[in-house]
C-alpha cells in the first residue's frame, strides 16, 4: 500500500498538471465521489453531534481508528461542494493509513493543490481549518 506521503505527492501532481479552471472541475469530481453518509451515522448527525462548529456550512466528521487504520467519514451539505471536494480528497489520502503517519504527513496540502488563485485567502483559510481539524482528531485517536 502506498504511503500517505506518496499519495499526497500523487494528488498534488494530478492537480499541478491542470489549468486553474480544470482544477476546480477535478475538485467537483471529488465532491461528487464522497460516499453518502452510512445509515449508522445518521442519528448522530441528526442530533447535531460531530458537527464541525467552526464551519459555517454544515460539516459532520467522524474519525475512526480501530485496527484497520484511519477512516474518515464525512457528511457535507450539498450546497458546499468546495468543502465537500476537499474533505473527499483528505478522506482518500488518509484512508487505511496509520494515524501516526497521517499526523506526521505535511500539513500544507491545501496550498499545494494550486487552488489559491481560484479560491482566494478567505476560502483557503476555511479549508486549512478543516484540514487541521481532521489532523487533530486523528492525533486524538492515537491518544484514546
Amino acid at each position, binding site marked *: 500500500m502506498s504511503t500517505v506521503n506518496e499519495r499526497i505527492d500523487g494528488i498534488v501532481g494530478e492537480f499541478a498538471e491542470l489549468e486553474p479552471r480544470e482544477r476546480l472541475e477535478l475538485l467537483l469530481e471529488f*465532491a461528487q465521489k464522497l460516499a453518502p453518509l452510512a445509515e449508522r451515522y445518521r442519528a448522530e448527525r441528526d442530533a447535531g453531534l460531530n458537527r464541525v462548529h467552526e464551519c459555517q456550512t454544515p460539516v459532520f466528521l467522524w474519525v475512526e481508528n480501530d485496527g484497520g487504520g484511519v477512516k474518515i467519514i464525512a457528511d457535507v451539505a450539498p450546497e*458546499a*461542494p468546495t468543502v465537500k471536494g476537499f474533505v473527499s480528497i483528505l478522506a482518500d489520502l488518509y484512508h487505511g493509513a496509520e494515524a501516526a503517519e497521517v499526523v506526521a504527513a505535511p500539513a500544507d496540502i491545501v496550498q499545494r493543490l494550486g487552488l489559491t488563485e481560484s*479560491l482566494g485567502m478567505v476560502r483557503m*483559510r476555511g479549508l486549512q481549518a478543516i484540514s487541521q481539524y481532521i489532523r*487533530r482528531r486523528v492525533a486524538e485517536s492515537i491518544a484514546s
Partner: protein
Amino acid sequence: MPKEYAHPEVLVSTDWVAEHHADPNVRVVESDEDVLLYQMGHVPSAVKIDWHTDLQDQVVRDYIDKQRFAALCSSKGISNDTTVVFYGDKNNWWACYAFWVFKLYGHKDCRLMNGGRKRWEADGREWSREPEPNYPRTNYVAGDPDLSIRAFQSEVLKHQKQGRPLVDVRSPGEFTGELLHMADYPQEGALRGGHIPGACNVPWSRSVNEDGTFKSPKELEKLYAGEAGLKRRAPVIAYCRIGERSSHTWFVLQYLLGFPKVKNYDGSWTEWGNTVGVPIEKGPGPKTTDLAVSNSAPVPAESTS
C-alpha cells in the same frame, strides 16, 4: 409601520426570474460563496461572477477598478441599460456583495432575486448544468466609484467618535469577542476580538425568513428602527468581517427600508481588528433598547487606545 418595501422593484421573485431569465435586456448573475456551486446547476441563462476572482483586485485589498469592472460587464454581455438580477447561495450574501459593487460603479438597474438559490431549489425549479453562456460583448462604460455607499476606515473612525450609528451584523459571539477560536485557525482573521465601540449588534440573519426570503417590511422596521433604534435620516454604517454579510444588511436598510444614507464598511473586522490603536469594545455593548440614548450621547470614551 410600512406595508410595502421602500423600493419594491429592486426585489424580484423566483417567478419573475423564471419568466424573464432569457430576455435580452435581462442578465441573471449568480454570485456564490462556494466557487463550485454554479457548475453544479444554475438558473438557466445565468452567468457567474465570483466575488474573489472577478470582483476583487488580486494584489491590493480592494475592488477591481472601473476599467476592469467595465471589461467584466462587457465579457458577461451586460450593457449600461441591462437589468441585472443577482442571486446566490447563503441567503444572497455574495449576491448582495456583487449588487453593491455594481452600484459602486453606477449600474442603474440592479435587482435581487428574493430567496436566492435556496428559494429556487425549494420551488422545485430547473437547474441548468450547461456551461456558462457566452453573450456578445458590449461597450460598457463604468462610472466613478460612488463613495456614498462605501465607508473607509478613517471615516468609520470619525463616525464612531461622533457617536453615530454603526450596525455590526456578525453573530453575537463575534460581536462580544468571546467566540472561541480553534487551534491554528484564528477564525476572525483578526488579532483582536470585539466590536467597534457604540455599534449595535443586529445579526444579518435576523432579516431573513427560513426560506431565504426577506422578512416583511413591518418586521424589518420593527427590528432596525424599533429594536436597534436606528434613525431613518441618520447616516448609518454597516460592517461584518469582510464586508459580505454587511452588504446584505446595507441592501435591507437602503432598498427595503429606504434609509437614505447607508454605507458598507467593506474593510470590516478583518481591517478594524488588525489595526493598531483603534478603539475596540468587548462584551455585549449597549443594550439595543438603550441605543437611541447612546446615539445622542457625547463622544464615547475610547476603550483601548
